[in-house]
């Protein structure tokens, strides 16, 4: 019963994704007086607190540490938000999935889009931090755009993949959340790579996919080009991941509604 999706149908579905994602975001700041700024302010407070405490502990110069931390936390929130919420994208859309024959990818992309919007609310902090710390933004920052496209493609398959398996195995979202929590400590976000002893650093960074994902965006925003390794690693993960996800989806797509 799956017809090839026509182009105008596709446009309509994109519109649906955008509408639903915006709706989710509006729901988060409804009934609060300062509205959208609430999302931005709470992120700013977190960054300021961690910056004060850990900047002191590590004894790193603030003008270097604070932009690094701000970019790191904001991007990490985006990455983990998309994956964690991706896990439950089918389960939380159960009512709709069981009533309306809307293609399932809509529910996943709604979650990805919602997290992109969250990122847009948070990212405005970064230029402020750079300004206060007297840093300038170079043209290299434009490299973050292709990096962002690649990262979104990568997060989309992760969200899609986990949406499928988490619908079948309901204890998986907690496991995913724990793994991401561990990833937070292993990835240079609140600590800077320069603080690590050299050999340990190579092991923790090179083999850490989260590091490469963050680097694609954080490095250009802070004024340096991301390493070619990061591009290759994230690119490879994206291609292999999508292959795996599409295979899995082709295999189980008719069963997902029955799992709900």
């Amino acid at each position: 019963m799956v017809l090839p999706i026509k182009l105008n149908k596709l446009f309509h579905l994109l519109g649906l994704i955008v509408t639903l994602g915006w709706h989710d975001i509006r729901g988060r700041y409804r009934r609060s007086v300062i509205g959208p700024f609430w999302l931005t302010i709470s992120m700013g407070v977190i960054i300021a607190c961690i910056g004060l405490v850990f900047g002191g502990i590590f004894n790193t110069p603030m003008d270097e540490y604070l932009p690094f931390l701000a970019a790191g936390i904001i991007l990490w929130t985006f990455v983990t938000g998309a994956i964690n919420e991706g896990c439950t994208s089918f389960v939380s859309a159960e009512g709709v999935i069981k009533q309306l024959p809307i293609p399932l990818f809509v529910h996943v992309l709604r979650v990805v889009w919602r997290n992109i919007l969250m990122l847009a609310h948070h990212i405005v902090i970064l230029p402020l931090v750079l300004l206060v710390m007297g840093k300038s933004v170079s043209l290299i920052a434009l490299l973050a755009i292709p990096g962002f496209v690649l990262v979104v493609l990568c997060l989309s398959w992760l969200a899609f993949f986990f949406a499928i398996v988490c619908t079948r195995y309901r204890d998986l979202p907690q496991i995913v959340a724990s793994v991401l929590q561990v990833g937070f400590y292993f990835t240079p976000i609140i600590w800077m790579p320069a603080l690590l002893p050299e050999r340990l650093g190579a092991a923790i960074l090179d083999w850490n996919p989260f590091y490469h994902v963050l680097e694609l965006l954080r490095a250009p925003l802070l004024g340096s080009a991301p390493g070619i390794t990061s591009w290759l690693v994230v690119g490879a993960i994206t291609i292999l991941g999508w292959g795996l996800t599409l295979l899995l989806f082709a295999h189980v797509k008719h069963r997902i509604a029955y799992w709900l």
Partner: protein
Amino acid sequence: MALIQFIQAGVEIPIFNAYSRSLKSKLIHIATAGKLSAHASGHVIVRALHGLDFSFADGDRVGLIGHNGAGKSTLLRVLSGVYAPTQGQAVRQGSLSSLIDVSLGIDLESTGRENIYLRGALLGLSKNEINARLDEIIAFSELGDFIDMPVRTYSSGMNLRLAFSVSTVIQPEILLMDEWLSVGDEGFKHKAEARLAELVESTKILVIASHSRDLILKTCNRVLWLEHGMIKMDGAPDEVCAAYFG
């Protein structure tokens, strides 16, 4: 032209318990070759529909009757394309709309107006199409200034009026219903009744599940009697109703 054709279609629904939904249990089960597990595997399969063979064409007004659990709701879900048959085939041509749960997707925190866009988008309307019909929808719902209030402040009647007004703006070729919709107070009821009758009139295929003999006799020109997920009888309303209702 609208068409629905089922060829030996059947649906088997897996029922999971907490145990079989857990990846941890599954892994332990594999690691210990199942010896450790004292649980039942939890893999129960319900045969909800079996060997359905029928086709609906333009002009068919089909009533679905049968006792609770006979498979009416499952069949409606297969018809809507939400469930794919696990056996056989189900072919459907033509745009489809379902009035089974009109309140679906209504968000209590959002205003009535926002909900029109939300529900409209879920039903397959583009933003421009909704804009074009917004005034008509609001006027029909008779919500007046309440349209810009959060839906949680609505009475249940107002809530239904809103849901009904949005859900009935689209004119599908195939319409699915679970019982007749009855909305609102006396005044609104007549209006809603007229709108619904018009919608049913213009649709090419109507499938309605019902427990009401009068409704079936009034609306349908063909009746499917389901029992234990199979078709017990398929024929003219008076005949099937006489056999079913006795």
